[in-house]
């Protein structure tokens, strides 16, 4: 046990996740396999994330769920207007660790460590959209000590503070104008901020309407990642601009939006469980990414104008035998990115997710969970129309074309409990 745990911790060092929209819904093997439903499902320690209130309804005294995914995200770009093509393949490794402990019949305590936000997109350096992004690596680890109280037999509440440790590394060219090019290599800036701390909270409640029907509700607060004193490193600056683009420090705020989830589960029989979740994410908080430099450089204003979005999740679980449980799910995930704001750092449009997985119960204490996720994106024509070249004043420049993405993510985890 100890060994597995330390292995997982090792991966923390290199954690980086996919995003489009930079929210990554991969927070537990069992629930991911069920379409990432779970606000009204009491299955395992994963409930500490989906709805802390549910911890009180777990049967075992101690529950541990540890898992991780390989997230393979591929995006293709093309513009038939200008005969441009580009591709980016990225791999992320979101993980989660959940532990719950039943202190007594009415109170349970838990710890949840998970990575719900992240973005790792690397295009070829100096590609056609290099003035918007060459590469970005955004990661955030959420650590959530959690407590849950049961009130009577049918109702519970729970919650806990969320402590976030994040980092961002972002590289892009300053302008598409080759004037600011040093021997053909565009002048670029790398923004790097590590050790960004922030906090928020997660609260939920659960209500067992009957032996078969459970209702759940969960709210995760907005968290603003405030990067302060990050380094801004300018590279390939031609001599004529060397005086303007000097290495400096920067400040920027990146919001992680509030998320409200409500859902229902229905235990049709000893073998069958069905679940439905509705997520509402307040992405409209993300108006603009403004990078304020410490030196005389003007603040870089990058309008985002995200909109609030919903996700509709459906999941089912079938207990085939004492050893095997099989799961499947489906969800519709709206993109917060609006027409004309489609930046290649988060090349994400509406998607449909198909999930599946199973658990092999080795013994009464230990189970092995497998899951997979396939996200289907329709081909989309969109552009980012709000790039204001800092070196000149000829209006905003549009960069767009056709994007097509796909995401596949197999995952593995273990569940341990007694």
């Amino acid at each position, binding site marked *: 046990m100890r060994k597995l745990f330390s292995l997982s911790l090792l991966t923390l060092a290199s954690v980086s996740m996919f995003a489009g929209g930079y929210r990554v819904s991969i927070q537990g093997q069992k629930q991911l396999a069920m379409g990432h439903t779970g606000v009204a499902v009491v299955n395992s320690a994963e409930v500490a994330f989906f709805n802390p209130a549910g911890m009180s309804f777990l049967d075992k005294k101690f529950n541990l769920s540890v898992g991780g995914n390989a997230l393979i995200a591929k995006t*293709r770009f093309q513009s038939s207007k200008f005969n441009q093509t580009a591709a980016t393949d990225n791999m992320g490794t979101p993980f989660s660790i959940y532990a719950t402990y039943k202190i007594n019949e009415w109170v349970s305590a838990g710890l949840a460590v998970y990575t719900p936000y992240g973005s790792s997109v690397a295009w070829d350096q100096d590609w056609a959209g290099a003035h918007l992004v060459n590469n970005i690596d955004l990661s955030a680890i959420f650590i959530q000590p959690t407590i849950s109280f049961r009130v009577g037999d049918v109702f519970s509440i729970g919650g806990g503070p969320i402590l976030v440790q994040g980092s961002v590394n972002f590289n892009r060219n300053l302008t598409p104008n080759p*004037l600011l090019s040093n021997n053909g290599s565009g002048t670029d800036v790398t923004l790097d901020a590590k050790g960004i701390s922030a906090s928020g909270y997660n609260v939920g409640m659960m209500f067992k309407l009957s032996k078969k029907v459970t209702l759940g509700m969960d709210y995760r607060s907005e968290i603003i990642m405030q990067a302060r004193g990050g380094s801004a490193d300018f590279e390939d600056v031609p*001599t004529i601009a060397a005086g303007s683009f000097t290495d400096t420090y920067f400040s920027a705020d990146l919001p992680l939006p509030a998320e409200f989830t409500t859902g229902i589960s229905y235990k049709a029989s000893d073998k069958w469980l069905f679940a439905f979740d509705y997520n509402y994410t307040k992405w409209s908080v993300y108006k603009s990414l403004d990078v304020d430099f410490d030196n005389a450089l003007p603040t870089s204003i990058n309008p985002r104008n995200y909109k609030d979005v919903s996700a509709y999740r459906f999941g089912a679980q079938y207990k085939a035998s004492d050893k095997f449980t099989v799961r499947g799910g489906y969800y519709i995930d709206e993109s917060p990115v609006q027409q004309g704001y489609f930046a290649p750092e988060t090349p994400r449009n509406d998607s449909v997710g198909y999930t599946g997985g199973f658990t092999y119960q080795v013994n009464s204490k230990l189970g092995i969970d497998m899951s997979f996720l*396939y996200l289907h994106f329709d081909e989309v024509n969109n552009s980012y129309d709000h790039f204001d070249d800092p*070196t000149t004043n000829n209006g905003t420049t549009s960069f767009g074309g056709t994007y097509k993405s796909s995401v596949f993510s197999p995952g593995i985890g273990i569940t341990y409990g007694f």
Partner: protein
Amino acid sequence: MKNKFIILATLAIGFAGCEPEFENEVNAAYSSGEADFTTYVAVGNSLTAGYMDGTVSRVGQTYSYPNLLAQQFALVGGGVFTQPSFAEDVNNLGGISGIPGFGNRLVIDASQNRPEPIAGASTITLTPQAKAYNNMGVPGAKSFHLLAAGYGNVANLPNANPYFIRHASTPNATVLADAMSKSPTFFTNWIGSNDVLAYATSGGAQADGVTPAADHNETGNLNPATYGFNDITNSGVFNTVYTNIINTLTVNGAKGVVCTIPSVTSIPYFTTVPYAALSPTALGGAANITALNTQLYGPLDAIFTAYGEPNRMNPLSATAANPILINDADATDRSAQITGALTPTLGAATAAAFGAVFGKARQATAADLIVLPASSVIGSTNSAAPAGINKNGVTFPMANKWVLTATEKAKVAAATTAYNNSIVAIAATKNLAVADMNAVMNQLVSGLQVDTNSIYTANYFSGSGTEGQVLFSLDGVHPNARGYAVIANEIIKTINAKYKSNLPLHNPTYFPGISILPTN
């Protein structure tokens, strides 16, 4: 149970191998339509040669609009596109070694904040390449030069063309014959600008800068062999020559595009320097202005007014910008009247000198166009002028060559219209596509929004903040690389519309504008 595992594993591998694929690949829809781009030949002048910043350089040539077109043609069956070799230009300086007037390319010297020819000695020589190329753009060529034998014969210098000398297949080959030797299946023809532009850029003056150049629409001279370099070609001659060129290019059934001639009023060479360039500060303040009015502007104004031209000169204003003083070859000569009027106060000899200097002088008006190089002449001391009246444009009239007067401008406009009417009419007889560059350039004057939403202007470079919207190079006449991309796009749109082809555009944002060096 084992089977289930295998199914899941297979599923996993299947999805992992899933590449995102477009319904239609980017190049699936590109087509040549009714055109055959197998052998594309471009005929024209400096604009076609990729001339910019006052020269053709090795790198600048790669941005010629024919070369940019050929890159797109290559997607739909276009073959190799060759251009005259500038491999000699190792340091990308342009110019031509040893030929006066063919200087290095212009750059902005940031330390001086002005355009200058880039430092260094040109390595471009007249060594004959004796080879026909797909790009037959010859800088400086007028319409009739394309048909002129010996235009590329070094023995005919200075009447031969140094650029054509470099690549004429034989010393007496014509530009058009060399072009036809490539057997074009598709062509572009943008010739005719120089038939009127040489006159305009020289302010309507001959090479001496003073003597008026001829407008052969007035003289009726139909023999181009007798034309001075800065003369305006007779529009009947232009029509005949242009017909000949188009008949030749289409003799084997080639399709193509012809381009109209831009109006000079859309070119920064003529629109950058204001006619009222003399601010009160530049004139040395109120005291100086009063002195100038008392001693010079007042008396001259009185004389012109007395002879019925009250607004030929007016006193200088101490609060607003003042027009420069110019020499108008078409003005009524008042030298005798000035001499007569000033003799009592200045004495006969000085009065006669004043009469000679100011006899054809007047103040510029908004209808006059001041040429770009005048900016460094206005206000400077003219060493050839009499002391006391030797400040160019202030106390000494700017010579003919610095100003395209309203009268001269009208001649240019009339000829341009006549040429463009010929171009459109002749193209129609062969059912050719017409790229209306005159219309495009006129849009640039008010700001042209291109396909990326960026707005470009016809303004001259005026500081790094404007660099990104400038489409003209530092010579003020020719586009920069970005400008040639915009031109190529306009031609592509014309081709797509006329020949039902589908060719992609170039993104002008990715093309360089002005060369700026920290020091030169």
